[in-house]
């Protein structure tokens, strides 16, 4: 049964990827503006039509849409979306050079925000109705409402400039040019961006964990456990296991939020990751790079959802039994 479920989920994931790729393709081609016109109009010059046509021909943009779609799909599965208009290098290679830097921020932020969000959510639910709970709720609402780039800007202003404890931005000091990369230096530069990304990732997990715990704590078996005289800490531990399951599901969607958050955070901190690349590619209508980035984001979210779906029966025996 489990293997049938696995095959079915894989098939659905592939179909989802296909549909998402079509949407990416169409959206990017209907976006106003194009690279070469923007480039030369920015100099206040009129662009000769033959230059525009030559650019379109060289990049296959003069072909019918369906022909471009076929080319797009033939490269989509290998992330070969062509050469970046702006950088003049293969878009896939460009992203491969930068994805590591993005993961350096995303993974710690994802882990920390999940951990802290879960802990705070459990605590808040345990203290439901108290001043602590209300304060935490209000704080999380404020954090959630304020965009990540504001948090990033404030972090730079307070902790890198007014109190110059951290660097202003970038991924390393200039010493990299003479002495090569230093892991300590990179981690020092990554600290503030990771803190900001973690901060913006906590509220979602916190809300879900809190609400899930409150709901679980109202179950009959919890009442029974309390009636039997179990210590409150053990009661909470029992409730925690059940309440955690929705949070695990949501963590896959959190990845999507963190990827978008990293676009702003990387731009604010001049971090050389995929986020900064996305900002630049959008501003310059660099289609091959945008296609590759959005395909990568799509794959990341699909894989995350797939992993969660497949691990659910392993985590919750009830799901596995009902499936059988």
């Amino acid at each position, binding site marked *: 049964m489990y293997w049938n479920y696995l095959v079915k989920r894989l098939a659905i994931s592939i179909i989802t990827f296909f549909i998402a790729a079509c949407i990416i393709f169409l959206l990017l081609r209907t976006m106003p503006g194009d690279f070469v016109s923007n480039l030369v109009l920015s100099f206040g010059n009129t662009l000769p039509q033959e230059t525009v046509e030559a650019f379109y021909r060289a990049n296959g943009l003069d072909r019918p849409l369906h022909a471009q779609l076929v080319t797009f799909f033939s490269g989509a599965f290998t992330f070969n979306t062509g050469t970046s208009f702006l950088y003049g290098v293969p878009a896939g290679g460009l992203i491969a050079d930068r994805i590591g830097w993005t993961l350096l921020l995303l993974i710690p932020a994802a882990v920390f925000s999940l951990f802290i969000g879960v802990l705070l959510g459990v605590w808040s639910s345990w203290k439901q109705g108290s001043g602590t709970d209300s304060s935490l709720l209000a704080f999380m609402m404020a954090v959630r409402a304020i965009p990540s780039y504001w948090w990033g800007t404030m972090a730079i202003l307070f902790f890198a*400039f007014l109190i110059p404890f951290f660097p202003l931005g970038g991924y390393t000091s200039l010493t990299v040019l003479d002495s090569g990369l230093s892991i300590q230096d990179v981690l020092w530069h990554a600290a503030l961006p990771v803190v900001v990304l973690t901060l913006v990732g906590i509220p979602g997990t916190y809300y879900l964990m809190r609400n899930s715990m409150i709901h679980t704590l109202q179950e009959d078996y919890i009442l029974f456990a309390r009636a039997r005289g179990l210590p409150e800490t053990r009661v909470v531990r029992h409730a925690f296991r059940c309440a955690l399951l929705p949070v695990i599901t949501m963590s896959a969607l959190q990845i999507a939020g963190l990827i978008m958050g990293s676009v702003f955070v990387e731009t604010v901190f001049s971090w050389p990751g995929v986020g900064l690349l996305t900002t630049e590619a959008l501003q310059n209508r660099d289609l091959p790079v945008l296609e590759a980035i959005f395909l990568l984001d799509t794959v990341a979210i699909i894989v995350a959802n797939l992993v969660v779906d497949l691990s659910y029966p392993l985590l919750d025996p009830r799901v596995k039994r009902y499936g059988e």
Partner: protein
Amino acid sequence: MRKPLLVALVAIVCIIIVLVSLLHGTGILSASTTKVQSSQGASLEDYVVLPVDSPSSLITGNIMTQKGAPTGSLIYEGLVTKGRTGDYTGWLADSWESSGDGSTWTFHLVRNARWHDGVPFTSEDVKFTHDYMKANNLPMAFVLSDVESVECPDQYTAVFRLSHPYPVFPDRLAQSPGIGVYPAHIFKDVSDPASWVDPDPIGTGPFVFQDREPGLFRMQANPSYHGEESEIAGVILKVVSGIDNQVLALKKGDIDAVSSLPAAVGMSLANEENIKVYTIPDTTGYELAFNTQVYPADNPLFRKAISHAVDRDRISTLLGYARPNPTTFLIPGVAGDFVNPDITGLYGYNIPLAEELLHDAGFGKDASGSLIGPDGKAVELTMPLGGKGAIGGADEKIVTIFREDLARLGIGLKTVAYDNEKEYRKAMSTAPVFIDAMPSGLHDDPDDLVNFAYTPLGDENYYRYHNPGYDALAQDVRNTTDRESRKETGYLMQEILARDIPTVPICSTDTVAAYRTDRFRGWEEAVDANGVVDMRVLTVIRPVDASS
């Protein structure tokens, strides 16, 4: 219970393997590699550190696919560069002359220039650059679109044969955006320049590529430079996104200078310790432009009335580091005696006169004070905002003042913002009035007045302004190389513009820059530069003397 644990363990191992592979690409796992210092033994402290906005400004790919003037790259040079008062300075060209009609230009090249790998620079490189860019349909080849062929009668002479007379052809090569000369011996073996990554950019300029890391690009001073050698060890370009971060980096000492500051930021830095603010005057010109085929701007008296409703003094004060431009189109600070003195001050701010002219044009006010046109409808203008005029929010500031004055005339004003250049240009073609901004390099010569005629490409001008007499004068100015004749023709063209008013000049603004006074000095001495990442600046600045 063992199965879930086993699955979890396998998943963790897989994730670690994937992560290590991905992080390997960053180089972080091969950290602490000892690198080679510059041959002159300079330390990082001796380098000038300047910010760039994005990684794409750091010669990614190769120079043939990059945008921008040769002065900006620091490694490559062009044949000539142009000063702010219209004088040309030779870089790779010693001297130059044209045929009587300006259709053939002969450049005599410097004889002691070498590429950074030691290969001598010759006229073959000039010819190669032209032929190669066109053969490969590279986007920047449009700069050479007027050139039919380049010939090399000898190693140090390059002859450009143009498709039509072009008396200011050096202007084309020098700025907005200008074009460099690139090494034939490197690119002749590159069959696909659009996707070739140059591992070691080789130019003739005063700075030599040294090394790079993501977000950093280091160049050292060229000890064998054919021109004036730099007094600094070199330059490091560092990616610092956003002007706010650049200002913080300047204050903290992470970078040495920054340019293109908003006026308010420039003013706020005036009292900062160890920071000096200076301006590069008249770098951008703003105009209120009319679409002369769209109602109500198709009425010459309406345009004349509006020309008296532009409060240049207030607008200049609001923009900051700006000064009113009282003439037609050419900016006095850079155009010099090309500006016709007889048409200065014709568009004085005078609301009563504007009302009178509107009345003469057949417009009148109703009981509520709204201006009613000859068609019986209330006059309301829709103005697109975007393009170069939107940089720093200049167009919105101009509109803030302009809207008040239009309201006094009973005219409503709506604005629509466009963040895309192409869409903005499309909106301009149907709007009766819009704000446009051009770099001063496009406001400094009678040749720039051709913007009001049919362009050499046969395209209509932005203003949809048609005047056969004006077009004929535009042809004359394009076919005349004599400076005095060009000036006289330019005067006549300006008289016509002053009469027909396809555009109303508003003001010119300065570029605001700031630098740290405790590191390097001489930034303000480069009077011809347009910013800080500019060869003309970096070849004159020098370290602050410890004793000074």
